[in-house]
């Protein structure tokens, strides 16, 4: 962090500690509105925090590194392990490649993995092994899986998978306790159905526990903080097969707030839904490529706030004395959770520490965050590993020091924040309250109506989703009304020009991951089909309790008039999977669809189930 007035001294201290800046921090002077915003956020937390009961302090997540030691040249192995050890890394997680362990059916080769596992254990690390990817010889040739994709497939027989899992756990018994079953089993990594993954998970768990009752099984969640997928896994019979739920973090694409809601729901409502689930651990197993070191640091502190037991980072993202510097801290609560300012509160040996960061870069007086309790401590606030931004300009010490907060988390000490912060991890309500948007939760309906130029999208948005595949549509004018037109083509080779889908995202405050508790009516208003009957139709693909589902196909009435079609759905569970909640699918039509309005209503229970009813508004 950088505090004006002590900038040079601060940089010297950081340099003497062997800390060097990684990236320059963007910053800008906020206007009065931004400062007022920060003040209001802190004030609102103070009001809520005053009424909340103190939550128990949470210790830091154990830090792990994702590092395939077999890919590391032997001469660099000891050096890398020493570096990670010095950084406070506790555990190494790596794949136990089935193809290399069992190159031919029944012939096991352990030497290579024995060497690296023993090296890691000898350096004081715990080792977590990942069962998979799939042995190429185990895949059924009749499936005609492309050669490069065989490792993402599944074994033809469950017997060979069980033999591999049993042999592995047996061989490493006493050395390895945690076993992950395949990597993030999404479409890219796992060419199989959800049920097929659950079978592999159950079989591996059964074999592992038979051989080693102390073995613990990790089931990775399929998406990036996908509440729906995690919920389905934990609601399936396979839940008894896993001791740890592992999840992955996305690159934030400039908006860390998008991560917070799924994480809060995962913590409080998915993992914490039953007493048994409260005992189940949640681990961060990794993240999307392109997560910056600063974002990893922010994720680590958020993981801490959400009570994550372990946090595995790519080895190259572990820097300096990353975790060791915070070993004595314990998480207490939060002052602010975005979007401009993130501030988490920790207890330390020398008092309270506020870890803060800002995706947009802020430069505000410290007193905007909290009153000063100890001016000396504020001025000497310690930097987090990675060091302060070297771009901090030197200024004479002001009466109330200004603090520059950028993307890299900084540590602030000497602030009087007792009673100002909210204890515990942020909940769904906290996250929604922190959004700079109106609260729509009490409204009966939301809409996207492009014939209303002043506010065409109210709680329902398509404009932000037109970069999604197949969803590049246009806003056009027809018969005096604006609307969304699909662009479909059937020509081979022109797939990129085929855009039959109109994606929609529902405001999270209005409806987010409610496991089908709300019955929903979707009304689609569109132009008729001049080509005649049964030439234009659509259905709706939506995120349901058990995955993406389709409504019935709805033909659009012939003619040039406007028509409205209503769908009632009783199993929606919108959770922003793949960045959207539902889409209108017109593929299969002979003409492009022209949709002018979509309305969503919550309807009282007791309707007549899912169905589509059309009526003309001509």
């Amino acid at each position, binding site marked *: 962090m950088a505090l004006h007035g002590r900038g040079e001294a601060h940089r010297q201290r950081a340099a003497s500690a062997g800390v060097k800046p990684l990236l320059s921090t963007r910053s800008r002077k906020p206007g009065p509105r931004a400062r007022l915003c920060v003040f209001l956020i802190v004030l609102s937390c103070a009001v809520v925090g005053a009424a909340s009961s103190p939550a128990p302090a949470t210790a830091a997540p154990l830090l792990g590194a994702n590092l395939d030691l077999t890919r590391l040249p032997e001469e660099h192995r000891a050096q890398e392990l020493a570096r990670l050890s010095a950084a406070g890394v506790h555990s190494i997680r790596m794949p136990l490649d089935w193809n290399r362990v069992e190159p031919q059916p029944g012939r096991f080769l352990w030497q290579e993995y024995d060497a690296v596992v023993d090296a890691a254990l000898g350096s004081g690390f715990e080792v977590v092994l990942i069962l998979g990817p799939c042995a190429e010889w185990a895949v*059924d040739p*009749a*499936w*005609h*899986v*492309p050669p490069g*994709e065989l490792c993402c*497939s599944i074994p033809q027989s469950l017997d060979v998978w069980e033999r591999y899992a049993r042999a592995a756990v047996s061989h490493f018994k006493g050395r390895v306790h945690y076993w992950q079953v395949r990597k993030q089993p*999404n*479409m*890219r990594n796992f*060419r*199989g*159905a*959800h*049920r*097929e993954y659950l079978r592999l998970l159950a079989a591996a768990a059964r074999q592992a526990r038979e051989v080693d009752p102390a073995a613990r099984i990790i089931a990775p969640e*399929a*998406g*990036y903080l*996908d509440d729906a*997928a995690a919920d389905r896994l934990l609601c399936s019979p396979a839940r008894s097969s896993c001791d740890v739920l592992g999840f992955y973090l*996305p*690159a934030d*694409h400039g908006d860390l707030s998008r991560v917070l809601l799924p994480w809060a729901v995962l913590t409080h409502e998915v993992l914490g839904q039953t007493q048994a689930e409260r005992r189940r651990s949640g681990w961060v197993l990794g993240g*999307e490529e392109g997560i910056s070191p600063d974002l990893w640091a922010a994720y680590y502190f958020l993981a801490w706030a959400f009570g994550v037991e372990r946090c595995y980072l790519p080895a190259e993202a572990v820097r300096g004395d990353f975790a060791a510097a915070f070993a004595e801290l314990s998480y207490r609560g939060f002052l602010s959770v975005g979007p401009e300012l993130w501030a988490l509160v920790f207890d330390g040996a020398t008092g309270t520490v506020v870890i803060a960061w800002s995706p947009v870069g802020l430069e505000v007086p410290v007193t905007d965050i909290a009153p000063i309790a100890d001016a000396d401590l504020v001025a000497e606030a310690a930097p987090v590993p990675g060091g302060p931004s070297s771009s901090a300009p030197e200024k004479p010490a002001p009466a109330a020091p200004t603090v520059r907060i950028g993307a890299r988390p900084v540590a602030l000490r000497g602030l009087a924040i007792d009673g100002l912060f909210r204890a515990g991890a942020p909940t769904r309500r906290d996250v929604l309250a922190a959004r700079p948007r109106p609260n729509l939760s009490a409204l009966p309906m939301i809409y996207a109506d492009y014939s209303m130029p002043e506010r065409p999208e109210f709680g329902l948005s398509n404009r932000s989703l037109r*970069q*999604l*595949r*197949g969803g590049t549509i246009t806003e056009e004018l027809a018969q005096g009304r604006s609307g969304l037109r699909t662009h479909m083509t059937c020509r081979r080779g022109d*797939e990129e020009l*085929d855009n039959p889908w109109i994606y929609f995202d529902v405001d999270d405050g209005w409806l987010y991951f409610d496991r089908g508790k709300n019955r929903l009516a979707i009304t689609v208003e569109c132009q008729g089909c001049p080509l005649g009957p*049964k030439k234009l*139709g659509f*259905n709706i*693909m939506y995120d349901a309790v*058990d*995955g*993406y*589902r*389709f409504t*019935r*196909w709805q033909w659009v009435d012939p003619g040039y008039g406007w028509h409205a079609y209503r769908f009632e759905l009783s199993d929606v569970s919108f959770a922003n*999977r*793949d*960045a959207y909640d539902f889409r209108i699918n017109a*593929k*299969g*039509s002979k003409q492009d669809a022209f949709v002018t309005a979509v309305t969503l209503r919550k309807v009282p229970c007791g309707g007549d189930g899912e169905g589509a009813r059309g009526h003309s508004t001509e």
Partner: protein
Amino acid sequence: MSPNLLIWQVACRATKGGGEMSKIAVLLAVFALVGMLAALAAPPACAAEYHNVAGLEPWPPESNYMSLAGCLRWMTFREQGVWLSMGEAKRIVNEQLQQG
């Protein structure tokens, strides 16, 4: 060392030597660079699981006049840029149908 970096280095060496090989190497490097840029420009897609097509009817417009396996293949390709083989698609659809 990443394959792209390796190709780029090979290209640089070949260019110094001149000749036909250098053109091929430069072409390779350009392709690698284009591939890299295309990967970066692709929209984020982290689809967790294959879409459940069990609720669709095979062959009418709602499945784009395809079988359910064909429809799953088409949707997967359209969204992920990856073709499932027909054998895989049939297997996955069978699993989805059994799940109900």
